[in-house]
């Protein structure tokens, strides 16, 4: 199977997944207590009879269910994710406006956790049974059990409020009007704490997986062969063990992308980071269901896109993989 076939196959599967999520959204609106028109209007429009009638007309709410579903899906297919009557803006515009901040945050957290996690896991495996292994394993256990929102709050107290090393909340210094490099540095300073706290859980996860994977590969025949041939131990660990052990970790990390987006809701809420997670929280407080479902759809699309990307990188990086299976 060539790359183009593979890519189109994966894209088709991704589109099907997103279609299924749109159907799920459709039924979720109807699962809410009350009239779907009121749900679509959010609390803002609940009292306005004219608006409700318009919504019924637009979404065909007086038509049979299948017609309603068709109208709803047609909207999604033309990238119309509904309208937020509370914010007087299309949902898609609201989400796209916030998307870059979330991509920056989740991307940074992903890189931090992957680099730190695999390095810690590799080190622990290399020194299996020694105190440094015990320390890393214990740390991974601890981070794995810590509630994300709590770490975020506690690090906010210590590093931002008490020590004042990094800014407390926000995306950049308001009113500073930095441009170019100064602005990038300013955003970077604001990014440190949210990205680290979001990455902590995943660092623990990847460290545990990397350690297990390394120990498994270390027992493989080709590693024994390399040792028998007289390859130096550090080289065996680096070139033979680590390089093979990291593959399953990266695959699993790609599959974990969805959880990273979920964690972003908590991190962005605590740090007032202006991304789609914060948007979701605000929509939650205001019971603005159109925005809630829109963010849910876009974050799912993010995960689908990310999975395709990792598969693709993987297939190019490792020719042995028949990703079609």
């Amino acid at each position: 199977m060539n790359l183009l076939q593979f890519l189109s196959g994966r894209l088709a599967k991704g589109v099907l997944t997103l279609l299924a999520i749109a159907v799920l959204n459709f039924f979720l609106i109807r699962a809410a207590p009350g009239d779907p028109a009121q749900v679509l209007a959010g609390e803002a429009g609940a009292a306005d009879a004219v608006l409700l009638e318009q919504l019924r007309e637009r979404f065909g709410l007086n038509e049979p269910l299948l017609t309603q579903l068709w109208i709803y899906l047609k909207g999604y297919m033309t990238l119309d994710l509904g309208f937020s009557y509370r914010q007087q803006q299309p949902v898609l515009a609201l989400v796209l406006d916030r998307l870059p901040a979330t991509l920056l945050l989740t991307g940074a957290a992903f890189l931090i956790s992957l680099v730190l996690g695999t390095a810690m896991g590799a080190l622990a495996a290399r020194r299996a049974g020694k105190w440094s292994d015990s320390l890393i394993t214990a740390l991974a256990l601890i981070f794995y059990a810590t509630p994300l929102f709590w770490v975020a709050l506690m690090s906010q107290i210590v590093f931002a409020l008490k020590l004042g090393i990094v800014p407390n909340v926000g995306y950049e210094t308001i009113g500073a009007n930095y441009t170019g490099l100064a602005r990038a540095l300013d955003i970077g300073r604001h990014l440190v704490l949210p990205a680290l706290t979001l990455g902590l859980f995943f660092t623990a996860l990847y460290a545990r997986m990397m350690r297990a994977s390394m120990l498994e590969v270390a027992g493989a025949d080709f590693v024994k062969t390399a040792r028998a041939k007289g390859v130096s131990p550090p080289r065996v660990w680096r070139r033979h063990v680590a390089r093979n052990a990291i593959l399953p970790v990266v695959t699993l990390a790609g599959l974990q992308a969805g959880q990273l987006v979920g964690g972003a809701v908590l991190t962005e809420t605590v740090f007032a980071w202006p991304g789609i997670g914060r948007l979701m929280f605000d929509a939650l407080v205001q019971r603005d269901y159109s925005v809630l479902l829109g963010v849910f759809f876009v974050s799912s699309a993010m995960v689908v896109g990310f999975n395709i990307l990792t598969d693709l990188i993987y297939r190019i990086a490792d020719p042995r993989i028949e990703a079609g299976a």
Partner: protein
Amino acid sequence: MNFLKRFCRNRGAVLGLVILLAVVVFALLAPTLFPQSPWRPVGRPFLAPFTIERFPLGTDTLGRNLAAGLVHGARVSLMIGVVSTLVALLIGVPLGAIAGYAGGFVDDALMRFTEFFQTIPSFALAIVLVAILQPQLGSIVLAIGVVSWPPIARLVRGEVLSLRTREYVQAAVTIGQSTPRIIFSQVLPNTIAPIIVMGSLMIGSAILLESSLSFLGLGDPNLMSWGYMVGAGRTRLLDAWWISFFPGLAIFLTVLALNLAGEGLNDALNPRLARGRE
């Protein structure tokens, strides 16, 4: 070596079990220790911890006793953790068993379905479900169950797939046992050990999920929960850190204990797979 000995050889697991037992005891004694509702303001707000004997952990923004909230919250966390894991098992075990035993088209379809649920960002789905169905005990349990079952289904499917070809299962087919009977009396009993291990680890994740939801304001408004308490202290972080600190610590310790005990259970139930410990 018997089960208990193997479990006790893992010191972390014993520590986990001790912490867990302490949490369970506190949860059970909650109505005796603090008969009043944990929602009731009982003292001056913002009392610091370890200063007044009546309020060992201090009071929150409204003068509610933090220790009472913590103990009552333990009931909620443990209950939601256990029940939602049971819901996940109730969905995941039958799906996995059917997929693994039937094979072919049924297996394909069910696994696509499972994959779909694994692709969706689970926390985002849980938020949407609870928000739409309104935050109540039932909807929270349902939401956590609905986002947690896929790993169970995959695990059971894999186990069933390998058990299906065993001779004793073929013997059961030969003597004419019905398929449901074979699944329930021959195959599933042999998958119980890994299901118990995964289930015990899932209770920890379920508690984390529940506390995250109630932190965002999606908890049952009638039940005091740890996540809600952490969220309630958010506005006064600098001068009243303890309001958010103690409930978070309780979540951390409980989840850590569950994970430690779960790993110990794994070692004890699968002695051949136990990782090398000195």
